[in-house]
């Protein structure tokens, strides 16, 4: 996690114009953009005197993870470019995937890896930086707000639930939640609002608040079809800045071990029984919420064997572009669900790690939201 105080200092100095003012303002400026982790999208100007990345101060960019050495590497401006020098770190510094053993040019667009964090080298004007900082601040606030509303991981006698939420730099409109409606009924949902930015996030939060506070009017929250129909009534896109959303909503009954579900414009969730042999898609037909007034949504059901897992995710999980430039589809992701679990690692983390490693520059173009439920 990036040191928050440092970030605030960066922003404060930037907004006051002390760092970029004068002759530098309006000129292009070397920056590092974080393209991984919770602080994706943060930008760090490379100061004229250079900048150090490490696990603790006096490093200017502080990464709080064990794989990062106290003073890990230093970036310096030289001959109009950025040179990276590893400072004898334990785990090394990598430029475009290659561990460096001498001062190495980080080209514009190149990727620097330090520990598990990835930085992209950008060349931006002062105006772009200022706009970016303002947008980053708004987006970061919105992402933090969404994150604060997400449910805690669950390890119940009947169900375990873990998840990964990794908003993209532009912030998509993903939200999700789960919880017991009664002693025996457990609801789970995932919403993906069209578009990106604070507006999409606000729309997602509005939907989420209705569901998490269980205040959907005149609706049985244990009836997935009814929930979708009510949401479709409440959120017509012509009254919500032309935004629609897709949703997958399910209710598991502990006593009968039955999962009722309905979806609207959303790809399937998958049920994987134990032992893992097949990923069963769970989806009902129906257009996205908000685009078709009066549409009816009908639920379907599936029996849930003991030890089975349900994987529920947004399209940002599989619509990635690989390092080779190939656009992936759902069919590319589903086989990963059947890959062996990793001892000591949550399923959601295993999948996140696997997908992220396949992405171009370890960067997601859309929110990565993945919920894994396991039914004991």
């Amino acid at each position, binding site marked *: 996690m990036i040191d928050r105080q440092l970030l605030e200092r960066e922003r404060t100095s930037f907004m006051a114009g002390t760092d970029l003012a004068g002759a530098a303002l309006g000129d292009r400026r070397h920056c590092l953009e974080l393209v991984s982790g919770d602080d994706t999208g943060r930008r760090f100007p490379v100061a004229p005197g250079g900048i150090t990345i490490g696990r603790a101060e006096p490093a200017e960019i502080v990464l709080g993870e064990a794989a990062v050495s106290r003073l890990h590497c230093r970036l310096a401006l030289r001959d109009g470019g950025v040179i990276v020098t590893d400072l004898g770190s334990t785990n090394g510094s990598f430029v475009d995937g290659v561990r460096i053993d001498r001062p190495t040019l980080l080209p514009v667009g190149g990727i620097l890896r330090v520990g598990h964090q990835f930085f992209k080298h950008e060349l931006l004007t002062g105006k772009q930086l200022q706009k970016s900082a303002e947008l980053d601040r708004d987006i970061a606030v919105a992402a933090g707000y969404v994150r604060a509303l997400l449910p805690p991981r669950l390890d119940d006698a009947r169900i375990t639930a873990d998840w990964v939420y990794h908003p993209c730099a*532009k912030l998509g409109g993903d939200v999700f939640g789960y919880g017991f409606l009664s002693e025996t009924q457990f609801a789970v949902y995932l919403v993906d609002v069209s578009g990106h930015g604070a507006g999409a996030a606000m729309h997602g939060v509005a939907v989420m608040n209705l569901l998490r506070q269980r205040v959907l009017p005149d609706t049985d929250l244990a009836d997935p079809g009814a929930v979708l129909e009510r949401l479709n009534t409440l959120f017509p896109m*012509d009254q919500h800045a032309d*935004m629609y959303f897709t949703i997958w909503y399910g209710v598991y009954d502990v006593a009968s071990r039955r999962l009722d579900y309905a979806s609207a414009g959303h790809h399937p969730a998958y049920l994987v029984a134990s032992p893992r042999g097949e990923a069963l898609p769970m989806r009902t037909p129906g257009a996205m919420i908000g685009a078709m007034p009066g549409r009816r949504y009908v639920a379907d059901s599936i029996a849930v064997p003991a030890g089975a897992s349900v994987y529920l995710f947004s399209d940002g999980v599989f619509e990635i572009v690989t390092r080779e430039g190939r*656009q992936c589809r759902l069919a590319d992701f589903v086989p990963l669900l059947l890959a062996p679990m990793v001892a000591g690692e949550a399923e959601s983390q295993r999948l996140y790690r696997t997908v992220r490693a396949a992405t171009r520059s370890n960067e997601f173009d859309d929110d990565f939201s993945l919920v894994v439920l396991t039914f004991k």
Partner: protein
Amino acid sequence: MQVTTIDGITRVVLDGRLDTEGVNAIELSFTATIVPAGRPAIVDLGAVTFLASLGVRMFISTARAAAGRGNTLVLYNATPPVAEIIDTMGLGEIIAIAGTEDEAIALAKA
């Protein structure tokens, strides 16, 4: 984006990725080409490699605006990856979808 007129129908050919950047680049001209023309429109998706939610939103908004003037918007010739997204989102319930150009023209005139 290429625009032609066939038999009183506006024909738009799109290409590339209709993600945030792709949609931002064409949305204004796409809508301005189709809606004020006051005639049916068909949109060839044969060279579109990726369709994001913003692209779907652009199609829905434009189709609604065209419908408000009594005209139909038809999407056709989608590649398998794009057809998969259209199917998943249930877009066919909202906008006319055709396989070939002839089918699209027939739907646009209906």
